């Protein structure tokens, strides 16, 4: 059996609403093996994005332990967490978050710059990542010259360009029409077949069915 890529132990997350403590995640326990494809479903406001941000090292839990690729990241420094986001995790957002003034290639190159990859190699790897998402012919396009589906594929190329072990996607099809949404989903499936572990949030039961496993979150509790 493959080893655990992600393990959450008793994760709690409270938000302060003025003086009021609002519990958003309650005792979440979750494990996922390397190479797995898991979909998280749940109603709006149930805490899916909150959970995703904690897994993605963008936010810290109030309580609980997180193991990423076997390492306890709750002890990590800010710089170490940056490096995890850079190398171990790839993030895909609902609203793409591409830099509008930069070409598709430059957008994909960005994380390689943070990893101090030399310039020429950066070009090459960014190009290959765009090739993997089927956009080899759109390399020099600016985001506003691309369709929504294409923009999301550029964002996916950016997420995988550093060969992360775990790909996190928060409603990646949420802003797309069903046709380009389906294309993006095919891409995730292909990447998963190539060995990348995928954890995806979605509202769409049909989309969730493409995943190997589906978990549901209700009111901050995982079922």
């Amino acid at each position: 059996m493959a080893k655990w890529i992600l393990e959450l132990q008793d994760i709690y997350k409270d938000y302060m609403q003025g003086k009021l403590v609002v519990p958003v995640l309650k005792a979440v326990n979750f494990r996922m093996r390397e190479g797995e494809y898991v979909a998280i479903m749940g109603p709006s406001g149930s805490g899916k994005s909150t959970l995703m941000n904690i897994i993605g090292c963008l936010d810290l839990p109030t309580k609980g332990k997180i193991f990423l690729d076997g390492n306890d990241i709750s002890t990590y420094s800010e710089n170490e967490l940056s490096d995890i986001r850079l190398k171990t995790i790839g993030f895909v957002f609902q609203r793409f978050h591409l830099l509008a003034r930069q070409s598709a290639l430059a957008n994909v190159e960005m994380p390689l710059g943070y990893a101090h990859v030399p310039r020429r190699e950066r070009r090459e790897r960014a190009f290959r990542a765009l090739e993997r998402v089927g956009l080899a012919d759109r390399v020099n396009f600016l985001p506003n010259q691309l369709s929504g589906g294409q923009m999301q594929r550029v964002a996916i190329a950016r997420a995988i360009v550093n060969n992360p072990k775990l790909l996190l996607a928060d409603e990646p099809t949420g802003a797309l029409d069903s046709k380009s949404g389906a294309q993006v989903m095919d891409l995730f499936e292909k990447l998963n077949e190539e060995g990348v572990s995928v954890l995806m949030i979605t509202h769409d039961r049909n989309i969730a069915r493409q995943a190997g496993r589906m978990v549901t979150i209700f009111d901050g509790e995982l079922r």
Partner: protein
Amino acid sequence: MIENIRLAFRGILAHKFRSFLTMLGIIIGIAAIMAIYSVITGTNEQIKEDLIGSGNNAVTVTLYQGDYQYEAEYGSGTPPILTQKLKDRVKSLAHVTGATFYYSRDYTQNVFYMNTRFSGGKIYGVDSDYLETCAYQVIGGRGFVPQDYARFAKVALVDANASESLFQGVHPLGKTIEIGQEPFVVVGIIDKKADAMPKVETMMEFNEYYSSTVGTIFIPDKSWPTVFKFDEPMNAVVKADNTDNMSTVGKAAADVLNESIGSATSNFVYKADDILEKVRNTQQLQQSTNMLLIVVAAISLVVGGIGVANIMLVTVTERTSEIGLKKAIGARKRTIRAQFLTEAIVLTSLGGIIGVLGGLGLSKIVSNVMEVPTALSLTAIAVAVSVSMLTGIISGLFPAIKASNLNPIDALRSE
């Protein structure tokens, strides 16, 4: 780093007009400082040139008795005699390129041409090094030759002023003048070499240099005792290898002369004219008046810096989502900080460079309109650019830290 500079230019070019307005404060501040500074340097160089003359670097070492310059009429005791051996010692001092000893008598009364008294003029008894060391050139007739010294010849040179005041239109060459009842034949007319003439523009300078428009008559030092007794002072002129060494050379020469006369005799002491100090004093006066202007310019630089800080804060707010994304995909705090700091520094440096160019132009205009000299100073340019970079660092620091501290989740949500 190069990446950051590229990013910075992209950011600045994205808002050309706004960036220009932001830079304007820096541009004005730097331009003003540059202009004032080059006017100061130019004026200072002019002052130095005026007072010292260019290229001669001669320092006069004069005999004093106590606090007063020694003069035969008022002094007491016998002034020391400066020997050839002593001159050789002075010549061998470091940075000395020439030395001459001479007798001098100011306000002479017993010199005549026909019935004209050479009243108030000076008379010098000079050695064979004098003309060369003091940058005189012969403009008519000849200078002194070795035979003049060997035979104690009664020959004289007159300078242009003496030629005018004593001869009043008559050509002096070959004429006989009477010095202490001895006849001397004028064999040459001499004048300061053009490039050794201090420029004279104000009354003060005029008084300083042409205290005697009556002029000077020169005779060989060997012939001096035939007309004057030995109670005239012997002074020295030493020539330094460059202007900055004039003070040192003058002091060193005075030390050698003082050592030779010892302390026993009648309170005599040799002192070097510290012309450099005079220069410095005059320059300081200029500088302090201009300092005020520099302060005003510096204030405009501070205001410019605040403008940059303000615009950088706006930029950070505008790009919140970009910053959040960058952090989310792995950029470290330091990376974000460096990006925004670089942008601020590039912005102010650009302003600084434009300011330097503007300042140089401005100083040209100022020098033309107000007829003051200006000098282009590489140091000033370097300082101006560094100051503008420093302004960038200071005003960019807070916005950059603010950017790097943004919470990526909040930053991503804003849009």
